């Protein structure tokens, strides 16, 4: 496997401004130094509770917002996308696309489906005239829609169909990497499975790589080869999907798994439930030491003082916890 993307020490700190002069009184450390890589053809899942920085990380990667610091080494060229000017970024924009959570809000209601899917090609002048029309139909068919659908407007489609339109648009410029931010969270259960299958099928067909962002662990486990668990702007653990859920190495991962109710009443009755106390802390005023320590049942003195670094503990497993070597944590 070859590396497609390497993210080093990505940070995004949003200033908190107060008063009439909009003085900066502090920072929301939405993303606070994360490292991961994505191999070609791989799906990396990014999972964590709301506000932990998943969306912000994705938006930085696409340069929709400027990162505070960090580098994104992309492609065989090993170009650092974080350092490019908007003009230099242009050819790379085509190669990285995004799919959004709310298929309703992300499609222009006054454009036909054909125009929506064709727009990236028109803007980038990759196709024109009848070639463009053919390509639109081809894209729609590859996501399970039909050629007649080009003339219809988004409101005439269900949530799942709208998500398909969003996917067709993201595929238009033949990207290598797709950042999908909660792409199935707004969908009904029965439709969610259709879209997950479609994403998996398209990945094979077009040799895509995904960064799949979601808060639902079961969905992330299903689609991902590897999973990164985020907590308060940092990565707690990265591991291949199966290892992560069978034998988590970070106490937060363990708690997160335990909180997911399994659709299996007997198993659910037998499970030991770890209930985390309290809420996720405010990212503008994170705790000292390990950010998870106020809610961690294994915390010791060192956890209050020193921030654990993400380090390799086994082949393909990285964990940010002082005690991961000695803890016996339970999986699913």
């Amino acid at each position, binding site marked *: 496997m070859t590396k497609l993307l390497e993210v080093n020490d990505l940070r995004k700190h949003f200033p908190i401004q107060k008063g009439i002069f909009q003085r900066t009184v502090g920072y929301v450390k939405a993303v606070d130094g994360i490292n991961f890589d994505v191999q070609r053809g791989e799906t990396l899942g990014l999972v964590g*509770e*709301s506000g932990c920085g998943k969306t912000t990380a994705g938006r930085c990667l696409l340069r929709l917002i400027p990162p505070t610091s960090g580098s994104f080494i992309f492609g065989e060229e090993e170009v650092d996308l974080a350092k490019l000017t908007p003009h230099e970024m242009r050819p790379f924009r085509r190669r990285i696309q995004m799919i959004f959570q709310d298929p309703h809000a992300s499609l222009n209601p006054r454009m036909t489906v054909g125009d929506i899917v064709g727009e990236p090609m028109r803007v980038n002048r990759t196709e024109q005239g009848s070639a463009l029309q053919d390509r639109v139909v081809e894209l729609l068919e590859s996501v399970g829609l039909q050629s007649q659908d080009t003339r219809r407007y988004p409101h005439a489609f*269900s*949530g*799942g*169909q709208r998500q398909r339109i969003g996917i067709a648009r993201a595929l238009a410029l033949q990207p290598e990497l797709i950042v999908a931010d909660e792409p199935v969270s707004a969908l*009904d*259960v*029965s*439709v*969610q*499975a*259709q879209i*997950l*299958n479609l994403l*998996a099928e398209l990945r094979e067909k077009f040799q895509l790589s995904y960064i799949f962002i979601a*808060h639902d*662990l*079961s*969905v992330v*486990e*299903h689609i991902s080869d590897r999973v990164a668990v985020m907590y308060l702007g940092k990565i707690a653990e990265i591991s291949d*999907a*199966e290892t992560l*859920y*069978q034998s988590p190495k970070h106490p937060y991962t363990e*708690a*997160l*798994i*335990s*909180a*997911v*109710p*399994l*659709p*299996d*009443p*007997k198993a*659910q009755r037998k499970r030991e*439930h770890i*209930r*985390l106390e*309290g*809420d*996720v802390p405010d990212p503008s005023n994170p705790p000292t030491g390990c950010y998870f320590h106020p809610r961690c049942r294994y915390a010791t003195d060192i956890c209050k003082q020193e921030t654990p670094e993400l380090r390799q503990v086994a082949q393909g497993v990285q964990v940010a916890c002082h005690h991961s070597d000695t803890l016996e944590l339970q*999986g*699913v």
Partner: protein
Amino acid sequence: MASAEKTPYEKPLLEISGLKTVFPTDDGIVNAVNDVSFSIARGQTVGVVGESGCGKSITGLSMLQLVPSPGRIEAGEILFHRNGTDAPIDIAQVSPKSELMRQIRGNEIAIIFQEPMTSLNPVYTVGNQIAEAIVLHEQVDKKTAHERAIEMIARVGIPAPAQRVDEYPHQLSGGMRQRIMIAMALCCSPSLLIADEPTTALDVTIQAQVLGLMQELQAEMGMAIMLITHDLGVIADFADEVVVMYSGRVVEKGTVDDIFYNPLHPYTQGLLKSIPVLGRTAEKTLPSIPGTVPHPLTLPVGCSFGPRCPERMPECDQMPELAETDGKTENGRHTVRCWLHTDLEGKG
């Protein structure tokens, strides 16, 4: 107070039968709830599950005469056996604005919704809002109500209650706001709590806290819970009985084990197979149900699930009745609306 579990009531707390709630719209009449029947026993949790638009919320709102206009209950009974002896009240016949309905709401049947921010008033402190709910139903002075509010906030597990009582909703996290809603709903010890997607807007670890709290309070106060959700995991965790709805109708109901280990309706079967389950990494393609839920104004002829059903037969052009299954399950209460399990006379 009588012990909640051992009281030998014959009648369930609530019996809904043939409930039909409709919305007249410009394009025709939407049958949001169509011939829905199920009952809720005292102290028990009934989970109502189904996809968006299948009629879960409108069923809940009908039970409190809170259906938004122009919607109305068109047929059916909602028999509320408020205690074991008196004749039941048919809520379907009680006027929404009547004194009786006001008494039932809050005092006997309470409801909480998915997004607590929309049900809490942003300009009053949470303490004021809880106290108001208490004063509305009990003869206590303001000071006592305020003290009771602090007690309730402590009871739902919010730290520093004496300080939180004077805070406004926006100062609290989503999980805390939902706890406040639960505090308000439970301050008058209702016999039934309708919880409409109470944890859908919350993170999983907070969801686990809130569901755990509801379970504790239920054990303590003995109330029945009708838990509306689209999350089968939450149902498996919490419900005793399960009602599965599809486009306005009940398609299957039974105990939680019936539904999960012996689902009979093709829709229930499809739904259970299509969800990714944590720890079952093996299969990479999910068996999905083709198509989407039909639009309520253009329902297919016969069984509403027909166009998506892998088992469709000629009979399915007629709507099957909800019927008892033929004793294939441990208890006789497992019922299903499907021709595969019903003969043409409509019997299971």
